């Protein structure tokens, strides 16, 4: 009626279900608990490591580049034909908002009124962004990053908002590579030099963020900045583009390229614009996570090995009896394999619920506060299922080996308890 193999599977399953049903619930609970911890170790450790960088990338994406960033060609100073380009982009149905930006290197100087002749000037090199406050806020929500003072208004005159790490009081450790201004806060006047033009401006607000492009730079109203850099043709340096929910940045990028934008500008999605080192760090952290996880996997395998070994050795007499009355050794081995699979699967299912039902939503809502990013938990489902597969495979092997060791012993020796 059944082939020998399916017969053994059937008996193995029968024995496993009966064993599990009548097992000590505390023991079963403890084994499953170890499996849950192993699953969490497998998924969460590398998930947090990668999430640390993904959090940084997400901030960079949401708070600076937008979904698509259009910038000047490498051999051009700015985006030529910008007004037409902005009009074209704004007309795409996928586009929610655009923020054209002017950008130029500048030197800031503070305390110039009180400086003695012998003293070194208190200066810092920065990038100044000229923005339309409303458009920029629509794309990146910059206003929310201004935590001291106020955000820019379109009619502001000679006022700037400044990144926190340009101000010494916010720099935890002085970095010789990044000069900071001393005694500057909201309302302080500073001097700003772009090329040969110097202007005195007032700090209207301070930007606090984990995005370097915000915390180490200065923003002012575009009309003011245009007059400083003497650009009157409306050509900008960057256009940050926010897409509507569900729109795909890659397809918008391709659509822009097909529209001929590439002749005037470089079109990148936020992912294209990521610095390469971030991608390298993600790969490195993935490897580190895998290394840590494999230790957990070994611990779980040893746990299952010990549990099955002890179970099989204490039941050696019954194993002998089963063989004696005609139950195949492979059916008995399979019963241990099924029990191991049960532990690994139940542990993984509980782990899945914890990770996807609790940890990810929790950490998304309250990201982990790392110094350079708001860390999230990254656990793509295909990767998680691959790890569940690994866990099940490891436990199957760990369950099979001790069962095989005990079951292969002589039937009569097992029945009589002889060595």
């Amino acid at each position: 009626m059944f082939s020998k193999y399916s017969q053994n599977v059937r008996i193995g399953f029968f024995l496993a279900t009966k064993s599990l049903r009548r097992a000590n619930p505390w023991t079963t609970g403890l084994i499953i608990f170890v499996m849950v911890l192993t699953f969490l170790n497998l998924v969460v450790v590398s998930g947090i490591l990668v999430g640390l960088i993904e959090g940084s990338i997400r901030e960079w994406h949401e708070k600076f580049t937008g979904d698509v960033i259009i910038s000047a060609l490498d051999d051009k100073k700015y985006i030529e034909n910008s007004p037409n380009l902005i009009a074209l982009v704004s007309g795409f149905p996928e586009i929610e908002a655009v923020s054209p930006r002017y950008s130029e290197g500048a030197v800031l100087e503070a305390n110039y009124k009180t400086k003695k002749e012998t003293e070194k000037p208190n200066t810092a090199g920065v990038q100044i962004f000229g923005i339309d406050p409303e458009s920029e806020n629509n794309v990146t929500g910059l206003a929310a990053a201004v935590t001291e003072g106020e955000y820019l208004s379109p009619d502001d005159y000679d006022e700037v908002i400044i990144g926190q790490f340009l101000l010494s009081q916010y720099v935890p450790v002085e970095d010789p590579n990044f000069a900071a201004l001393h005694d500057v806060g909201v309302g302080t006047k500073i001097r700003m030099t772009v090329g040969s033009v110097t202007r005195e401006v007032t700090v209207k607000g301070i930007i606090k963020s984990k995005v370097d492009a915000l915390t180490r730079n200065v923003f002012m109203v575009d009309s003011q900045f245009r007059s400083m850099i003497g650009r009157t043709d409306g050509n900008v340096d960057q256009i940050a583009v926010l897409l509507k929910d569900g729109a795909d940045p890659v397809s918008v990028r391709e659509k822009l390229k097909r529209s001929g934008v590439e002749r005037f500008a470089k079109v990148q999605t936020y992912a294209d614009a990521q610095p390469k080192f971030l991608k390298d760090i993600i790969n490195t952290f993935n490897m580190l996570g895998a290394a840590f996880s494999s230790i957990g996997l070994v611990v779980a395998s040893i746990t299952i090995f010990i549990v099955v070994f002890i179970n099989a050795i204490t039941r050696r007499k019954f194993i002998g009896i089963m063989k004696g009355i005609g139950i195949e050794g492979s059916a008995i081995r399979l019963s241990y394999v099924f029990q191991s699979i049960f532990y690994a699967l139940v542990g993984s299912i509980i782990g899945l619920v914890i990770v996807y039902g609790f940890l990810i939503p929790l950490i998304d809502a309250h990201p982990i506060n790392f110094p350079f990013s708001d860390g999230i938990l990254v656990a793509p489902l295909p990767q998680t299922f691959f790890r569940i597969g690994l866990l099940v495979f490891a436990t199957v092997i760990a369950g099979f080996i001790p069962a095989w060791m005990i079951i292969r012993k002589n039937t009569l020796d097992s029945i009589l308890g002889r060595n």
Partner: protein
Amino acid sequence: MIETKKLVKSFRDGEVFTEVLRGIDFRLESGEYAAIMGRSGAGKSTFLYQISLLDQPTSGEILINGRNTEKMTESEQTRYRLAHFGYVFQDYALLPELSATENVMLPLLMRGLTGKSARAQAEQSLARLGLKKRLHNIPSHLSGGEQQRVSIARAIAHHPKILFADEPTANLDSESSNTIMDIFAELHKEKQTIIMITHELEYAKRAERIITIDDGKIISDKRNSSK
């Protein structure tokens, strides 16, 4: 049906070499009920293990239905035991996590019966041994006599050709022992071949043959005149 020729079983423990069975010639026909007696250490259990294919003899031949078992692999022996033998052990040997029905079902499932048929056959076998109300009890919730009856139900559920019983009454009180002996007598009436080891002459007398083993040899093989 079962025949042994010059059956020898010896054990070696370091330098010590012990010959437990010393060339036993034996024959049991189909439908016979034989009791094997002997003092402790005489070799009766060892003899039972050899002829029931639970162990390998050191030398000699075992023929079952004319087939020499010497060249059977372990797996073949397992299948043979499943197909043709039933076992009743002294300590019942029931699986503690299985109910009475499940214990009896196990070899039936292994023989390829569906779950439903196996259950029905197991329940029928248990009912026959007066355990209809104990079908779902696990062994620890049964008395010694009940456990042994479950063990017998398991041994006979698949209608084995030979039933081997290794001191089936050793752990039971006299009332339970008599019940077990009555069951064996009834099975024998149905032409079940039975080989039973016992220390009790009273129970051995219920078999049709009484074989006595001493010092690894059959020293007497008598037909029970009352049978």
